[in-house]
């Protein structure tokens, strides 16, 4: 007897263990699609972040890294209950499961335990990703509560997130056990999931004193834990009730009337009549998902009312702080309207019914879309009309000031709806569609916005990408109606995904390639030339120019003695030219290159002009002496600057030469023409051929160094055309534009050397520097070039190279000597 009992116990134990293992396997397997989906999408986002960060540098798409990871346990918690319970109820497999000799308690507890362990796994996964990819902020602990910026702006307190996701998981099970319709249960879950935040906001609203963010964080945690304590037992009770025998309806008919009695006739029993063939399909569309459509319209309305309220307030404290969350209902409703096309309750039967009646795929497609699209159009119309009445000013409301236009909103609506209806066609289950569609819609919208802003993707491309999923579902409609859409639907889906991803990249590539690159032979030739020129053993001398220092603003003391400051600075402004060129003179005869930047040259130019003005005013020996010193120093400086292999050096040499020619022509009297300073200055003036050679050398060497100096700084040069290019493509287009710049400048150098009238190079430089401007009135146009060069020189910075090339000053050397 005892042996028999032992054997029985062993057998029972083995079977219990076995059935538990099988049960866990089944539940885990049912969760697998959700887990895989979330894991793939989260990793995809992290990888996209990493790739964009590496490829685009400062243009990195600012997706919130750790939030992205933390959202996924939340999404898992949202989906676990509906998937493990709601789906089983809707597919009636729960009835089959309940037929097995397994207690309701065991079914309920196993499902809940599997959900909780799944949630724990998701958390471990999320935290591992955060750790491995070094996301988050290292200087703050995420395990503190209320230690940062408050519950609404601080989504990074892990204890709060974990407890809230557990609450959402339990709430998800509760609504799934209570409400059989999966969609309605998800709708019910939304307010339930947010209830701790709502309660916290209410406390904040009705508290008599302002509350610190940390306090609110603690209150939120408290409400969440309270929610867990409340929801756990009622979830269990709901499960036991659902798995038990269904209650008989308590309502008893008042009269025992025959099924065929007229007393039973209601409006529902009267067959509707329709005037057209399309009308009944639309009628069917409305009546087959009345509840769902009503709820989605309600969500749109709530979101709209929240927007109206937000546009009228300028601070979001207390209960108002919840309104931005309500705004999220609108995109969610748009998304779920898209899902309702193929995945509302009875949708598959409806499509089957229409297919059996021989209704064409086109008409069925129209029937499925017409009501959601009509709702969206009406919503957009309402938004557009309301937007016209809103005052878009920050002073009224920052929300109102930033309201997007109707066109922008419409574009987002098209993307979200299109992607969602596509997801609802190829994903088998409603729950997975409901979770996957918002994520994919968000990623798609984010990608297309990025493509538009950063890659210059045109608007018609955005529309094309938005409509591609609609076309895909239309193409698959016939097969979908005949339930033969697989595996072709994945091929078409891959095509759509490829189109959405690759089309912007294709456009961007074409845009980049539209800028011609340099001929490879010419490139090799110029690089060889640059190699030779940059290999010279010239000695670089920095010309010391004192005066206002670059960092003056930083040393400026707002509380100091203003008069003393002024005197000091004025004193420093005066420059001794001989001191500046002393080192150049000491190396006379050697191959010395002077290094002087645009700012330093401006100082030089200003001081020399001051000396000229002083000479004009005083006409005495001291004034002449000072101006002569400037002429002498300039005569030393000019050849040394002209030897520079930097393009900026050549620009300064040009300006200095123009200044010297103007000085010699205008201010040097005939009786002083033979003075050494004048002679030195006259001899320093170059020839067109000499300048051309120096400029060519500088152009190719600067180009070889990517228009940067040895310290990686841009040589005070900026191509305006780059400002008009999509920011994400600037890095790709810049070398090509510099190729064009170099080609045009080399043509310009040749034209200047030969005194040619060719304007091709000037047109090209104009395009590169003044995109969109009128050529003739531009810096490279004839109008400006007909003026004396000295009157058209910009100071302090370079607004495009080559403006002084080939103008009259280059050819006036003899006039100086014949001046009376």
């Amino acid at each position: 007897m005892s042996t028999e009992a032992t054997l029985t116990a062993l057998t029972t134990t083995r079977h219990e263990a076995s059935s538990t293992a099988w049960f866990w396997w089944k539940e885990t397997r049912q969760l697998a699609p959700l887990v895989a989906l979330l894991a793939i999408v989260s990793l995809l986002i992290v990888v996209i972040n990493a790739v964009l960060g590496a490829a685009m540098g400062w243009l990195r798409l600012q997706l919130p890294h750790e939030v992205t990871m933390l959202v996924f346990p939340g999404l898992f918690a949202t989906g676990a209950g509906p998937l493990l319970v709601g789906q089983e109820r809707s597919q009636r497999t729960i009835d089959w499961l309940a037929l097995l000799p397994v207690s309701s308690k065991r079914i309920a507890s196993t499902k809940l335990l599997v959900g909780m362990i799944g949630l724990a796994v998701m958390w471990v996964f999320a935290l591992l990703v955060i750790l491995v990819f070094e996301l988050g902020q290292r200087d703050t602990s995420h395990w503190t509560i209320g230690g940062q910026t408050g519950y609404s702006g601080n989504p990074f307190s892990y204890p709060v997130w974990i407890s809230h996701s557990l609450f959402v998981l339990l709430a998800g099970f509760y609504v799934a056990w209570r409400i059989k319709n999966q969609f309605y249960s998800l709708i019910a879950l939304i307010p339930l999931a947010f209830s701790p935040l709502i309660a916290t906001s209410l406390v904040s609203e009705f508290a008599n004193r302002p509350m610190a963010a940390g306090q609110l964080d603690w209150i939120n945690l408290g409400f969440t834990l309270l929610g867990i304590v409340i929801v756990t037992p009622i979830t269990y009770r709901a499960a036991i009730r659902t798995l038990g025998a269904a209650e008989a309806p308590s309502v008893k008919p008042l009269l025992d009337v025959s099924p065929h009695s007229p007393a039973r006739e209601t409006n529902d029993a009267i067959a509707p009549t329709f005037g057209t063939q399309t009308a009944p399909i639309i009628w069917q569309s409305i009546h087959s998902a009345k509840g769902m459509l009503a709820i989605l319209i309600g969500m749109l309305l709530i979101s709209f009312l929240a927007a109206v309220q937000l546009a009228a307030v300028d601070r979001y404290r207390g209960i108002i702080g919840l309104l931005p969350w309500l705004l999220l209902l609108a995109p969610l409703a748009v998304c779920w309207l898209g899902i309702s096309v193929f995945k509302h309750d009875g949708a598959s039967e409806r499509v089957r019914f229409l297919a059996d009646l021989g209704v064409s795929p086109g008409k069925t497609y129209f029937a499925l879309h017409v009501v959601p699209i009509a709702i969206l159009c009406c919503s957009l119309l309402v938004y557009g009309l309301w937007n016209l009445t809103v005052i878009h000013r920050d002073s009224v409301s920052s929300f109102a000031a930033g309201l997007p236009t109707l066109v922008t909103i419409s574009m987002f609506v098209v993307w979200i709806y299109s992607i969602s209806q596509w997801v609802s066609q190829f994903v088998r289950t409603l729950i997975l569609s409901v979770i996957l569609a918002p994520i994919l819609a968000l990623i798609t919208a984010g990608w297309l916005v990025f493509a538009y802003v950063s890659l210059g993707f045109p608007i018609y491309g955005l529309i094309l990408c938005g409509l591609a999923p609609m076309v895909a579902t239309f193409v698959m409609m016939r097969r979908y109606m005949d339930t033969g859409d697989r595996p072709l639907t994945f091929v078409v889906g891959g095509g759509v995904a490829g189109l959405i991803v690759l089309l912007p990249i294709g456009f961007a590539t074409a845009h980049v390639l539209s800028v011609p690159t340099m001929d490879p032979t010419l490139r090799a030739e110029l690089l060889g030339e640059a190699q030779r020129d940059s290999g010279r053993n010239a000695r670089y001398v920095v010309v010391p120019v004192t005066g206002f220092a670059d960092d003056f603003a930083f040393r400026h003391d707002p509380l100091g003695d203003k008069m003393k400051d002024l005197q000091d600075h004025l004193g420093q402004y005066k420059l001794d030219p001989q001191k500046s060129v002393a080192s150049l003179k000491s190396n006379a005869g050697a191959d010395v290159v002077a290094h002087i930047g645009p700012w330093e040259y401006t100082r030089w130019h200003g001081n020399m002009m001051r000396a000229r003005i002083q000479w004009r005013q005083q006409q005495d020996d001291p004034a002449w002496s000072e101006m002569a010193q400037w002429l002498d120093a300039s005569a030393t400086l000019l050849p040394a600057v002209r030897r520079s292999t930097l393009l900026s050096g050549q620009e300064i040499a040009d300006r200095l030469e123009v200044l010297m020619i103007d000085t010699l022509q205008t201010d040097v009297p005939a009786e002083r023409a033979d003075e050494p300073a004048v002679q030195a200055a006259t001899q320093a003036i170059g020839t067109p051929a000499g300048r051309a050679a120096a400029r060519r050398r500088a152009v190719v060497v600067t180009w070889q160094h990517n228009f940067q100096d040895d310290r990686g700084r841009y040589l005070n040069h900026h191509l305006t055309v780059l400002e008009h290019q999509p920011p994400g493509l600037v890095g790709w287009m810049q070398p090509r534009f510099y190729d064009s710049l170099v080609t045009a400048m080399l043509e310009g150098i040749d034209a200047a050397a030969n005194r040619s009238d060719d304007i091709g190079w000037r047109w090209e430089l104009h395009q590169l520097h003044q995109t969109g401007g009128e050529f003739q009135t531009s810096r490279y146009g004839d109008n400006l070039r007909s003026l004396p060069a000295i009157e058209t020189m910009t100071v302090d910075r370079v607004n495009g190279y080559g403006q002084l090339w080939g103008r009259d000053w280059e050819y006036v050397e003899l006039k100086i000597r014949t001046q009376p």
Partner: protein
Amino acid sequence: MSSQAPVADHLPEPNETTMEPVITTDALTMHFRRCDALMGVSLEIQPGTVFALLGENGAGKTTMIRILTGFQKPTSGSCTVCGVNPLRDPQGVRRQIGYVSDAPALYDWMTVAQIGGFTASFYDDSFLPNYEASIRRYDIRPEQKIRHLSKGQRAKVALSLALAHDPSLLILDEPTSGLDPKVRRNFLESMIDRAATGRTVFLSSHQISEVERVADTIAILHHGRIRLHGPLAELRESIHEVVIDVDDPLRSIAPPPEPAEVLTEETSGRSRQLFVRHLSPEMIHALRETPGVTEVRTRIATLEEIFVACTSHRTAPAMTAAI
């Protein structure tokens, strides 16, 4: 017309008197919001029988099965299945029965083998070999996913799952829909074999030919009430079709006297068709002697005719007036 056949009408066989009924229902009533699914249904089903519950669509058959399997509480009344009240201990009932619904909802992502292994884990060691043998017999590949099976194959898998633990009571709701004729025939024969080994089969169907082939006992459910209940052979012997030709279409004919029971009557010109229970030769003779009656023809009614008679509303005004 009789509204309900009392349980006492069914005289038990000598060997049944000592056995507890496997199913008893006592005045089961089920009101839904817009219909009365069951109205005071009382039944007793003896072990070792194949019981067929016949009824039109919407007659209340599935509701009754749901109550018997503990999925639905009745509005009033009580029942026991295998001596257990399904409302108090549904698990106790489900442990002893096998049930196949008309549209079995199986996990379509599982393979045939997986669903067998999963279900077997809740039963004893004999389940899996039985299930595998059944699957082999039905020529279904174990590695196939349920979602890729045809309707008939799904029905076979569901049947295999319901039978593999050799339940003492098998409840089948439209069991043969989707099965091909050959499998259907084998299956029905296996039901007879089960009954022969003392197990009970509760069969809900409107396939009269099938029921005729296998059922020992039948009940006809119409508008929530049991219209006829008893051993099939006895019922068939007791119900006759009577065709009476009269000289004048307007002539009124008195119905056969008690204990005869007219189930239905239809008039076509000078001919009247009646289905009568407990008809005796004396009654036929009396009808022939009735003035205006030119001819009376009788024969034993088929089960289909009995079913139609019990579930139709056709009654002749003249006969009604006469009654």
